[in-house]
């Protein structure tokens, strides 16, 4: 079966200073304006066992493997995953989680699953920023060359249901600390960030 239009899925990334999208393990960066290609780690699953297997003669993803660019079919499923991470049901690398989510175009060899896809190639199609990096939405959109907006209020409610409230930290200039190393409004470095009330 050959399709001429990219398949559109939903996924999230972890924001990485200064303006990159990375996977949740923070071990893969989506380079702006370059497609990302899946590479097989040569592991396959049979039941609950994981085996090494040489897939090098075929492009990723492989049917019996876990490789590929992942995406969900539906947005509610993605928002549920984000909520699970906020509520501690799933961990991310170094507990540093600044999510940015959206649609991704998938092409090449694509394996359709019940709830999502694993693809050979991918590139973000449209992005939404979560509150921690709202002021950077325009800049991220420019860097990646795709629309990037502040998340709609409906998504905000969906994600925040179980999310913990953290102590509000502000820069010396009064702006809220954005976890990106500098204040995106006045560019004060975060070394001057202070907890509110101190």
């Amino acid at each position, binding site marked *: 079966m050959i399709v001429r*239009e990219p398949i559109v899925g939903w996924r999230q990334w972890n924001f990485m200073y200064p303006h990159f999208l990375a996977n949740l393990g923070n071990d893969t960066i989506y380079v702006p304006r370059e497609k990302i290609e899946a590479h097989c780690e040569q592991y396959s699953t049979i039941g609950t066992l994981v085996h090494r297997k040489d897939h090098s003669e075929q492009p990723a993803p492989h049917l019996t493997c876990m490789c590929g660019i992942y995406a969900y079919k539906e947005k509610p499923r993605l928002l549920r995953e984000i909520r699970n991470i906020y509520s501690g049901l799933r961990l991310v690398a170094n507990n540093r989680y600044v999510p940015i989510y959206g649609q991704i175009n998938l092409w090449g060899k694509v394996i359709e699953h019940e709830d999502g896809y694993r693809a050979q190639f991918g590139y973000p199609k449209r992005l939404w920023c979560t509150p921690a990096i709202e002021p950077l939405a325009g800049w991220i959109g420019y860097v990646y060359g795709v629309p990037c907006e502040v998340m709609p209020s409906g998504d905000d409610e969906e994600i925040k249901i179980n999310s913990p409230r953290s102590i509000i930290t502000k820069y010396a200039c009064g702006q809220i600390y954005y976890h990106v190393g500098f204040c995106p409004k006045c560019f004060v470095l975060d070394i001057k960030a202070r907890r509110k009330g101190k």
Partner: protein
Amino acid sequence: MSQIGDPLRIIEVEPLEEPVPEKEVPFEQPADPVKEPA
């Protein structure tokens, strides 16, 4: 594949054009407003 369920089928997707934006438009340096002395 607990994250996205079981595999259903393989699809070959060959778009006519890859959906990747062009590289950044080069920033054009504005003309130097300081004129060379005559």
